[in-house]
């Protein structure tokens, strides 16, 4: 052991500050507590929500086009609901009736754009009907619920003869129908959308279906409750077998009252097929009991799309509480076992808690909300705060023993000696994460500010309040302090350190990290920007969302829209045959891409109408030759529709329309290829009266986000490392110090990037902040070890001895903090949200790799290369000793 006088002379100001903090402990404590109380109050006001606009780079031209046209042509927030029958086809009365009602319920979900629903059961999905006298009229496919088999057969005929419906809204095998609804971005409420779809759209027609159509709410009186009145009973169903009749009101299920269709479905849903239920049925004034056998499910409903995905993510967000609880309890237990004293468990908790209140309060102040996908971040920051506190507590015990059990001297000495590495660590973490503000995505900007502030808030608890809290707490028993330096843990650290600093150990360490870096550099070439798989990486591949997504993709080819806007230079530009032919050519060109399922544009309507004009002869499915003929054809189709309905195809002045491609997935490399092909086509096919503009829809905005990430990824890495280098430069006043500290960090970074490539984790708006935080957090281990080596060499003057001493003292505390850091994030691997699980696991690996590199590679490098900035401290200490001795003799 060492330190003491020499260090004390260098850090006089810090010793003085430590003394004053204890002297003025009451006012300092009161001020900090008042501010913390205020932030705690603000924290309680926090909400968990996602603002879709904040995830997009608003200055990107694609996003500007998306924002401009999303209200009319549809945005990125679509829900696709697929109804698939288990036997036969969908063209039966009960199934078509359910599709109609499902569409109706979808239209009532909060935030839906009523004019942007596509379904054979929606008023805006029309077909062209030839009437007597040669008139043609565009009519909705289903005006009302079909009642007879003839109605169903007629709908089947219409679907099969309408190019814009068959294969697009009804599958080619007739077994599935698609309901597509676009949501207004400013009215997105993921939790509400999720529950409304579950309760009102899915349950009554899938698990809660008994074979009778129950009346829903009156559209004109949406707030008025509608009792579960039977509207239709279908033949051969469970409801018919139970004797339920039209006009009956179902008032209870197994004695549990039900007030409407959704409650009835919710009451039936938990029971398995074949179970008999007692339904309370009101007929007139009397209430009778009907025995209903829960039927086998005859139809499946699958729902996909961004609002649905976030709905699932929100439904899993409560994972955070059990993870928090288990992490907290395990960490308390570990700290208690390590320090042999409850104060060692409590003190880091106080630091973490105070920093958390300051951080969360700040989140509220800047008007930011927590996204369920960034919940790992607060854990990581809190774990870092706790780690600093563990270092300090360990040092306090060490100083307590050295200062002959004098509490005040130990408090001041631990404060002064650890001030520099703690503050440098906090500064590198805070400034390292701040570089994310360079990416022009609002969410990342806010996140960088919050994370940076939160990390800086650790200073308050760790440096300002720390000496005071120790002073208030009773000093530990000496036997507790001594026990810390005994036992298997200390013995293990001693043994590993001895091996590490032996000749064989040094060579092994250098070769090991060198080989790992080379392998990592080779593997990291596979790292992708954007999502690397077709399933959503936010939830597990066997989650209900990804299962639904895969089913819909299989049946309909593609569900993720890319909207390319055809912007005319003047009104009526969309009636120009050359513009329309180019749009059609564009569709055929991009449909050849393996990841584009199908496409849709104004020209599909035009060709279909032209064909109807000519007795459905396929050869007439072409675009007319003159603008006049085009205008006439449009008039026939759109004349019976209000502008709000036609606006989803073309604006009322016929200036602007769109071509929408439905992609099979949103893999990062596929998006990049599709966008590149679009740009090639646009460059090769200029139009006189219009031009194509990229790009709206989910694919368009993801392309913009990926574009910004590619542009900024390298820059951020460079700035992240640069920031750390500059802070280290000021801390140790040496150009070389940064190289020594950054080398292990750089190798860790390579290994993590390689792991991301191997585990198929792409760089996107969600992963980027976590990965950037990891860069900064890895440096702290090295800072503590480096500072301790310098501190030791000032006393004993021997480099090898100082390295060893640093590793068995600070290195031991570092190893314990690493265990805590790894555990805090590793528990996230049990999360239902795959993204959080993967990021938690990845950060745990990162923290572990950084720790091992700092404990092995850093000391070996220092031992081998004997850096001048460390050795000069030994020379200075030797020069100072005679002076100090002379001064002592004179006094």
């Amino acid at each position, binding site marked *: 052991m060492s330190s003491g006088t020499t260090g004390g002379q260098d850090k006089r100001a810090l010793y003085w500050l430590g003394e004053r903090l204890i002297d003025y402990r009451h006012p300092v404590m009161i001020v900090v507590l008042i501010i913390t109380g205020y932030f705690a109050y603000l924290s309680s006001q926090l909400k968990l929500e996602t603002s879709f606009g904040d995830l997009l780079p608003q200055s990107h031209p694609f996003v500007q086009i998306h924002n401009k046209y999303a209200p009319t042509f549809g945005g990125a927030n679509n829900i696709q609901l697929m109804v698939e029958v288990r036997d036969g086809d969908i063209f039966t009365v009960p199934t078509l009736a359910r599709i109609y009602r499902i569409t109706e319920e979808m239209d009532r979900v909060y935030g839906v754009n009523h004019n942007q629903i596509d379904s054979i059961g929606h008023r805006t999905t029309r077909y062209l009907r030839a009437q007597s006298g040669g008139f043609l009229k565009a009519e909705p496919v289903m005006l009302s619920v079909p009642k007879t088999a003839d109605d169903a057969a007629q709908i089947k005929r219409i679907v099969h003869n309408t190019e814009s419906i068959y294969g697009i809204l009804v599958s080619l095998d007739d077994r599935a129908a698609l309901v597509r609804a676009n949501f207004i971005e400013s009215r997105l409420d993921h939790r509400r959308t999720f529950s409304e779809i579950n309760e009102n759209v899915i349950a009554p027609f899938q698990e809660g279906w008994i074979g009778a159509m129950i009346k829903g709410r009156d559209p004109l009186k949406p707030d008025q409750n509608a009792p579960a009145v039977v509207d239709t009973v279908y033949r051969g169903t469970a409801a018919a077998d139970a004797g339920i009749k039209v006009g009956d009101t179902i008032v209870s299920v197994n004695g549990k009252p039900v007030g409407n269709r959704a409650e009835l479905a919710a009451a039936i849903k938990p029971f398995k097929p074949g179970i008999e239920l007692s339904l309370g049925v009101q007929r007139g004034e009397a209430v009778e009991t009907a025995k209903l056998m829960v039927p086998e499910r005859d139809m499946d409903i699958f729902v996909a799309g961004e609002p649905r995905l976030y709905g699932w993510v929100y439904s899993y967000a409560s994972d955070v509480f059990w993870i928090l609880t288990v992490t907290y309890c395990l960490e308390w237990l570990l700290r208690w076992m390590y320090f042999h004293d409850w104060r060692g468990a*409590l003190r880091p908790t106080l630091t973490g808690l105070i920093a958390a209140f300051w951080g969360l309060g700040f989140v509220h102040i800047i008007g930011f909300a927590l996204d369920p996908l960034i919940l790992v971040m607060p854990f990581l920051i809190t774990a870092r705060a706790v780690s600093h506190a563990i270092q300090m507590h360990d040092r306090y015990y060490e100083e307590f023993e050295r200062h002959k059990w004098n509490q005040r001297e130990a408090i001041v000495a631990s404060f002064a000696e650890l001030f520099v590495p703690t503050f440098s660590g906090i500064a590198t973490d805070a400034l390292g994460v701040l570089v994310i503000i360079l990416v022009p995505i609002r969410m990342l900007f806010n996140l960088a500010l919050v994370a940076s502030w939160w990390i800086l808030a650790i200073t308050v608890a760790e440096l300002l309040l720390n000496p005071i809290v120790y002073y208030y707490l009773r000093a530990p028993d000496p036997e507790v302090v001594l026990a810390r330096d005994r036992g298997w843990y200390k013995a293990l650290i001693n043994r590993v350190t001895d091996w590490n600093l032996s000749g064989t150990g040094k060579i092994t360490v250098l070769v090991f990290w060198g080989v790992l870096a080379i392998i990592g550099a080779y593997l990291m070439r596979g790292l992708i920007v954007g999502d690397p798989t077709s399933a959503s990486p936010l939830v597990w591949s066997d989650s209900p969302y990804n299962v639904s997504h895969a089913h819909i993709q299989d049946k309909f080819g593609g569900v993720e829209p890319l909207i390319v806007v055809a912007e005319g230079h003047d009104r009526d530009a969309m009636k120009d045959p050359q513009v329309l032919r180019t749009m059609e050519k564009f569709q055929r060109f991009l449909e050849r891409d393996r990841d584009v399922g199908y496409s849709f544009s104004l020209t599909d309507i035009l060709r279909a109408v032209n064909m109807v004009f000519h007795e459905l002869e396929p050869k007439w499915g072409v675009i007319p030759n003159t603008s006049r003929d085009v205008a006439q054809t449009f008039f026939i189709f759109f004349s019976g529709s209000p502008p709000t309905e036609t606006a989803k195809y073309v604006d009322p002045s016929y200036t602007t329309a769109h071509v929408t491609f439905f992609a099979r997935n949103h893999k990062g490399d596929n998006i990049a290829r599709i966008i590149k092909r679009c740009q090639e086509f646009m460059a090769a096919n200029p139009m006189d009266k219009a031009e194509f503009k990229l790009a709206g829809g989910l694919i368009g905005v993801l392309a913009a986000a990926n574009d910004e990430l590619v542009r900024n990824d390298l820059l951020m890495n460079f700035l992240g490392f640069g920031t750390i280098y500059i802070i280290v430069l000021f801390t140790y006043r040496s150009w070389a110090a940064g190289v020594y500290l950054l080398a292990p960090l750089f190798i860790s970074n390579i290994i993590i990037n390689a792991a991301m490539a191997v585990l198929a984790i792409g760089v996107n708006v969600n992963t980027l902040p976590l990965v950037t935080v990891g860069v900064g957090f890895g440096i702290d281990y090295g800072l503590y070890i480096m500072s301790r080596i310098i501190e030791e060499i000032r006393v004993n003057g021997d480099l090898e001895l100082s390295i060893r001493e640093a590793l068995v003292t600070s290195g031991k505390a570092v190893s314990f903090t690493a265990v805590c850091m790894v555990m805090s994030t590793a528990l996230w691997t049990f999360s239902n949200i795959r993204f959080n699980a993967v990021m938690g696991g990845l950060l745990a690996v990162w923290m572990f790799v950084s720790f091992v590199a700092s404990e092995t590679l850093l000391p070996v490098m220092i031992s081998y290369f004997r850096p001048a900035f460390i050795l000069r401290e030994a020379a200075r200490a030797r020069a100072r000793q005679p002076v100090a001795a002379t001064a002592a003799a004179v006094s």
Partner: protein
Amino acid sequence: MGLWESVIIVTVFSIGVIVIDEFIHARRRKRREREGAARVGH
């Protein structure tokens, strides 16, 4: 599990650890005092 259940569990757990720790140390102190008194008695 919700926020308040989580808060209650961690609070109870922390108090539990503190109580157990104090109990263990109190026993050790007593034992030391007894051993010290016995040595003085000799």
